[in-house]
């Protein structure tokens, strides 16, 4: 049960009880703020939870639930997901969706259906199927799933074209919100890594002794520059 004491120039020293730092770090990763709740640092736990989760869900919202997905195939290497995974459990449905759609299966939580890439009326390829444009199409459609990779992977011979175009369609329909949503969710994931560090090691407080050392170094450097 490590306890860190930070001496202060004035007032009581700051004491931080990290409990089991490994568990705290795991909880902090799994749900932003949970590691701090485990350590009974409630104020910081709430602060991390509100800041990180609101950023993440806002990004996911403006990205229409499509900006967090796991895909590491040639042509669609979603490196941003590595950063988004930093937010923990809220990003995990993307892994479930990736596994579900890996071999051409339909995703869970379907948002909409689209005409396939080889649809005879090529101007409708990748377009959403709506009551207005649906001419009783009975073939296999492309399904957009919540936090699922871009669909259309069921035809290996046109894999790269289909993959790229569905993603392109998302960018086109979402306008700048797709990029903005990606940015918000990536930043949320990266910020949670800071929270994990804080849960594992405690805050990076500069103690009076360290402050003194920094100031003396600054003075030395100034003297050197004058000479």
């Amino acid at each position: 049960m490590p306890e860190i004491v930070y001496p202060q120039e004035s007032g009581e020293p700051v004491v931080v009880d990290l409990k089991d730092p490994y568990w705290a770090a795991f909880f902090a990763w799994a749900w932003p703020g949970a590691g701090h709740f485990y350590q009974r640092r409630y104020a910081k736990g709430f602060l991390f939870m509100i800041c990180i989760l609101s950023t993440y869900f806002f990004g996911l919202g403006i990205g229409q639930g499509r900006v967090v997905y796991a895909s590491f195939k040639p042509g669609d290497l979603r490196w941003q997901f590595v950063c988004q995974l930093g937010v923990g459990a809220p990003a995990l449905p993307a892994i479930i969706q990736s596994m579900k759609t890996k071999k051409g299966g339909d995703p869970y939580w379907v948002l909409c259906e689209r005409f396939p890439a080889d649809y005879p009326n090529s101007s409708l390829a990748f377009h959403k199927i709506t009551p207005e444009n649906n001419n009783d199409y009975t073939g296999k459609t492309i399904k957009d799933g919540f936090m699922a990779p871009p669909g259309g992977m069921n035809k290996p011979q046109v894999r790269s074209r289909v993959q790229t175009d569905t993603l392109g369609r998302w960018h086109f329909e979402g306008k700048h919100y797709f990029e903005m949503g990606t940015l918000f969710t990536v930043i949320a994931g990266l910020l949670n890594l800071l929270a994990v560090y804080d849960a594992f090691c405690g805050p990076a407080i500069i103690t009076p002794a360290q402050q003194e050392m920094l100031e003396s170094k600054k003075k030395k450097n100034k003297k050197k520059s004058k000479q």
Partner: protein
Amino acid sequence: MNVFSSVVFDHLLLAAIPQIWYALPLIVVVSLVYGATRHENLREIFTHSLRNAIWCVGFMSIIFFLIWIAGFWN
């Protein structure tokens, strides 16, 4: 339109917000979280966050100004 887009676009009217304002919540959140990793007391966290936010806005303003100036060479 799915539930997400109808809530976000129709009700919150995000489409009417200029893109630059999306930086504001990010600056606030990044400053608060960074401040929280440097202090334990809320008062110190908020003070540190405020300084960070001012620094961020200042830095962004400098970059904005440089890009704006560079635009005259078009």
